[in-house]
């Protein structure tokens, strides 16, 4: 999946079940995730490898995540940190932002929301990630939400962008409507098959003029291919 493919997460979470689930879920989207169950494990991981983003729990067996956050920032290390909090009080939220967190999510979090927040954080940071992708004459920048076709720069709406990310993650692979639907819409929305066709139609317009095209495989789904 687009940019996020190249993302490397450090998950700091002591609840093993949750940690395993989050790791599995993020890997499903193609992310690389390391997991630390304690703050000292987290420090070891950070010393050993660079990360694009840290997902930080607050209550950990060997200390408070907020102290870790404060220490990281004081040491001048600015890896983006998103705090996962189980408390939903205003004071907690403001508090972690003041301490230097880039954002927070409240458990249980929606992975689509988490991804959107990661994207927003990286965009704000002017991420030094290798973000631009090329395919069949398309230059896709997911952080800026722009698509270059030839010399022309076209803006993508969020759903168009995510749809392109899905298809671009595995060109030539057929994605079913369900697979696309799950990633494009929230579970609370009732979605008609027609809705997906609307977005496919729009995206087709946006990639016009390049070698890329989106094929409809009747009764199965869609795939991105190049002429």
């Amino acid at each position: 999946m687009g940019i996020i493919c190249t993302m490397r997460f450090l998950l700091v979470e002591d609840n093993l079940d949750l940690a395993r689930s989050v790791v599995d879920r993020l890997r499903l989207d193609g992310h690389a995730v390391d997991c630390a169950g304690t703050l000292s494990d987290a420090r070891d991981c950070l010393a050993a490898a660079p990360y694009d983003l840290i997902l930080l729990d607050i209550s950990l067996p060997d200390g408070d995540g907020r102290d870790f956050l404060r220490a990281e920032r004081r040491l001048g290390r600015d890896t983006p940190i998103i705090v996962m909090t189980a408390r939903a009080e205003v004071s907690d939220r403001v508090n972690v932002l003041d301490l230097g967190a880039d954002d927070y999510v409240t458990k249980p979090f929606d992975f689509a929301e988490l991804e959107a927040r990661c994207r927003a954080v990286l965009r704000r940071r002017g991420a030094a990630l290798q973000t631009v992708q090329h395919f069949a004459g398309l230059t896709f920048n997911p952080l800026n939400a722009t698509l270059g076709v030839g010399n022309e720069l076209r803006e993508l709406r969020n759903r168009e962008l995510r749809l392109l990310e899905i298809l671009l993650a595995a060109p030539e692979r057929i994605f079913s409507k369900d697979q696309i639907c799950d990633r494009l819409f929230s579970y609370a929305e009732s979605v008609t098959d027609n809705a997906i066709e609307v977005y496919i139609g729009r995206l087709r317009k946006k990639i016009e003029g390049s070698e890329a095209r989106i094929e409809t495989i009747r009764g199965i789904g869609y795939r991105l291919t190049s002429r």
Partner: protein
Amino acid sequence: MSQAPLSLRLRLVLQLLGIAAVLAILLYFTVRTIAEQAAEATHDGVLGAATLAIAERLQGGDSGVGIDLPYEAFSILGSISADRVFYRIEAAGKTLTGYADLPLPPRTGASVAPVFYTAPYRDTQVRIAAVKRTVLVARVAVPVLVVVAQTQLGQDAIAQRVARRAALVGLGSFILAAVLSLLTTGSVLRPINRLAEAVGRRGPQDLRAVDHPTPAELRPLVSALNGFIARLRGALSRTETFIAEAAHHIRTPLATVRARAEIALRQAGSEDSRETLRAVIRAVEESSRSAGQLLDHATVVYRSDRLADEHVDLSALIARLVMAIEPIAELRDLTIMVAGVENKIVVRGDPPLIESAVRNLLDNAIKYSAQETQIDIGVEKKGKTARIELCDRGRGLAGQRQSRLTGRFQRGENSGDVVGSGLGLTIVEEVAAAHAGRFELTEREGGGTCARLFLPLV
């Protein structure tokens, strides 16, 4: 039901009044007795002098005892009162002159000083002075008794006057004592009232120990109160910790369920299991949202009793909240347009509550907006109030009354499958009320809803 014990003030006042009454009565009797005794002594002195003056005029002789009654003696008596005077002079057991039935003294002393006594005579009480003399008659010593009596009407009148005066003195001293006792009671009880005021003025969040200066007698009460406050503080902080722990212990497994369900959904084949998993995810979302809203609502109720009185810059608050919520809006291709946040607009209030209200409004707008629409949020000064206005292109109010939508756990009939707890607008309304502000919902022209929150400016 046990009766409340008598108030301290009443108790003190009654006791002091009781003492004052007893003292006043004692004073009355003392004054009266002393005055009567003084009057009687004066009267006796005059009566005795008159008697002695008569006795001076007794003359012996060969034929018998002679007397030349000195009328000035009677005029002395007349000078102190208009009472009637009786006399009797008796020599050797026979009355020489005067009233023969005037009572004789019970005993006559050997002294030359008169003897005084009171006896009934002719339907009245008379004061009598008697003096004994020996007169030589034909060289024989004859004992002569001079008895002078005077009715006591004048003295009684004096006594009555004195009694009235004494009663006035007693009453006056009683009234004075009553006033003083009221003042004393007030001053004795003042430290208690001051302490009560100092404790009463506190808000529910003020759990500092009481260090109000108090007299030594109240110190046990204050230290008991402080002990209680410390226990209460402990209990509250345990409750807060408990709520935080509880939230943690509920939300963490919910997060696991949600992540697992999303993974399973990705891998699920049949439409049935997909539907089931979607329902699971929706339920997780609903329960976590409800938990959050319940906490928010509890915070609003708890803090409403005693609002923090701080300056809140609505422009900064809105900018921050919009930035925080933007990624979620983006997921549905919603655009949030913000207007009027270039200038500070400062209201007085409780920052967490105001933030809670605005966040709930934003949340609602995002939840109910049709995808790819615009949400307009603006803040401006309207007279003495700041108006936050939030308009969406959602499903509108469908003719439902605002009072229904802001009711607790009430959700609009047209809320459909949008996840919610029915507390969001309740929170907004309560925050508005707590700040003496106002909240209104109206249908937006061209479809959708406009929510307006009015808060008083600084």
